[in-house]
């Protein structure tokens, strides 16, 4: 379970997953091999919050987005949106309500748009589906408004274009415009900048921050780039091989990472302010996600693995205020029930295991 600090009221919660699990069967009818894309994911997204879901390829990030977008049903577990179980929504009206409030933006702007329609089509179709009260002229107006918000100017000309006439960055903005047109509460952004040039990324990230500020939407920002997560996200969830291994406020997770995998990710980001520290040896073995069995999935790559890691799957444990990590070795900031204060205090906290972990 997630340790929710007292300061964040529960009624602020927009979406919560409990034990969300998705397995894929591999091979033919007789095959019993299962790929564990996502296992027992518990997470919370609050209103007006940007949550970054970070992890390497194959860690299950995209599967989480697709589960939340109801593209696949989960194998187990539940998604609660505003307290309602998403998988108990059956009437078309209810399903449309959820899909309208939680739209998705795809990773590849080149394949996320139907090439035979003008870009206006996607926006208009969304408006027709989710905002039935608007007439034709109002839909047009609204489409121009959202195109303006995402920075596609002049909107009227841009709406008339076909996807192949646009650049990748423009297409990704169209993706966000489509999502915005439905007055979303939560945008599922699946690696929205990974296919774009670095020079365009900042523009998209700033746009996301502005959407949160001005349109009051929450964003689930899925990325493998921890630096961009630091740039926009309020909270970070780190995934590894289908497990959420660490989650907490961005600053806390990045300054005081608890899980060895998070540390590995961070060591891959060059920081000009710190002295170059040799990266702890990484055997670089890809995680085993096909019939993984019990145990920590990071243990083969983990320099701190102990015997217990091979037999018992670590569950998320509180590491500090609103900060969890699923690791047997990691040592919480909380000492004798007292919450750890500043980073300085944490550094002074003596703990033998800490030495072995970060020494």
């Amino acid at each position, binding site marked *: 379970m997630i340790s929710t600090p007292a300061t964040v009221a529960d009624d602020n919660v927009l979406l919560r997953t409990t034990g969300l699990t998705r397995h894929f069967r591999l091979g033919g009818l007789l095959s019993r091999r299962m790929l564990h894309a996502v296992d027992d994911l518990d997470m919370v997204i609050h209103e007006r919050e940007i949550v970054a879901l970070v992890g390497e390829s194959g860690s299950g990030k995209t599967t989480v987005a*697709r589960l939340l977008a*109801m593209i696949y049903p989960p194998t187990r577990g539940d998604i609660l949106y505003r307290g309602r179980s998403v998988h108990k929504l059956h009437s078309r009206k209810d399903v449309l309500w959820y899909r309208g409030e939680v*739209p998705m933006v795809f990773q590849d702007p080149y394949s*996320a*748009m*139907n*090439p035979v329609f003008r870009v206006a089509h996607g926006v208009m179709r969304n408006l027709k589906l989710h905002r039935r009260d608007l007439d034709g002229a109002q839909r047009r107006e609204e489409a121009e408004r959202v195109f303006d918000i995402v920075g596609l100017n002049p909107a009227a000309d841009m709406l008339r274009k076909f996807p192949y006439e646009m650049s990748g960055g423009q297409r990704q903005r169209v993706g966000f415009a489509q999502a915005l047109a439905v007055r979303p509460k939560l945008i599922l952004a699946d690696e929205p900048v990974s296919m774009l040039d670095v020079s365009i990324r900042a523009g998209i990230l700033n746009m996301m921050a502005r959407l949160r500020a001005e349109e009051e939407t929450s964003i689930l920002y899925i990325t493998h780039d921890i630096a961009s997560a630091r740039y926009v996200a309020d909270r970070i969830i780190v995934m590894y091989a289908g497990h959420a291994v660490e989650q907490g406020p961005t600053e806390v997770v990045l300054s005081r990472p608890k899980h060895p995998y998070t540390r590995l990710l961070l060591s891959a980001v060059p920081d000009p302010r710190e002295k170059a520290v040799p990266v702890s040896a990484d055997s670089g073995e890809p995680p085993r996600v096909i019939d993984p069995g019990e145990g920590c999935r990071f243990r083969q790559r983990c320099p701190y693995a102990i015997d217990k890691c091979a037999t018992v799957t670590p569950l998320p444990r509180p590491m500090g205020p609103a900060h969890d990590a699923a690791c047997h070795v990691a040592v919480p900031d909380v000492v004798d029930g007292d919450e750890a204060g500043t980073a300085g205090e944490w550094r002074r906290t003596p703990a033998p295991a800490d030495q072995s972990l970060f020494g």
Partner: protein
Amino acid sequence: MKYVSRRVGLFLITLWAALTVNFIIPRVMPGNEATAVLATFRDVNPAALHALQIEFGVNVHQNILLTYVQYIGNCLTGQFGLTAQRVPVLTEIISKLPWTLGLVGVTTIIAFAIGTLVGVLGAWRRGGKLDGLLPPMLFIVASFPVFFVGLLLLYVFAVTLNWLPLSSNYSIGLEPSLSLSFIGDVLVHAVLPGLSLVVVTAGLWIYSMRNNMITTLAEDYVKMGRAKGLRSWRIMVDYAARNAILPNLTGFAMQLGYVLGGSILVEYTFSYPGLGYLFYTSTTDHDLPLMQALFLVYTLAVLVCVLLADLATAGLDPRTRDA
């Protein structure tokens, strides 16, 4: 618009090339229309041969360029000369054309529709019952020769069960009219030849359509449609099938030659008096003017279909319009 004019231009150039080839081939072959008619006779009277040559308009001594210009002019005005039976070729073709157009045209459209639909549905529910049964079955049948399927159908439905007529386009003794009984009679006669064409050609479209469809279904815009909450038939038709059908349209035009070839065999098997049957008799009669004109008609049919497929592609895919 630029795309359309370019396609039409290409069509005209190809047509001209076909006309020219059609002009050259008979002239590099030994003999001419008149000698072909008299080929079965020995010791032909030179005067008779000359008379026939004049009747067919064969003038071996004329400048070939002048003959070519005359030939092009004649083709454009529809003057294809006389058949071996001294009937104007054009009259002969026009009298048979509606039958073939009706039979082959309608069956090709039905076969394309069935093939596309089965391909779309098969890919949509990949591995389902329909997908496991229909595509392999139709594909196996598609590899049978069309006359074989025709003979099989004839044996079962006309000879053994005696449900449907054996041959011809309508019952002997019936006067062609627009009455219901005559139209019904024509339809009953068209069932077996039509069925054999549909059965054999439907399989041609299924696999390419199914494969294209599977590829497009994996595209993100299909997932996007689902995440938006579009109804699944709209995702299937507007998002997946519309993109998947584009390569198939071109394939459709390309396969048309095969279908027309098949129609000759079918018309022969069922003694269906259309262009295919006419083609068959013209080859056995060594009827050069008729063959030449029929070659042109078939070439024109394929070219027109390619043009139509190109225009349809332009209508469905905006990217081709400006390219």
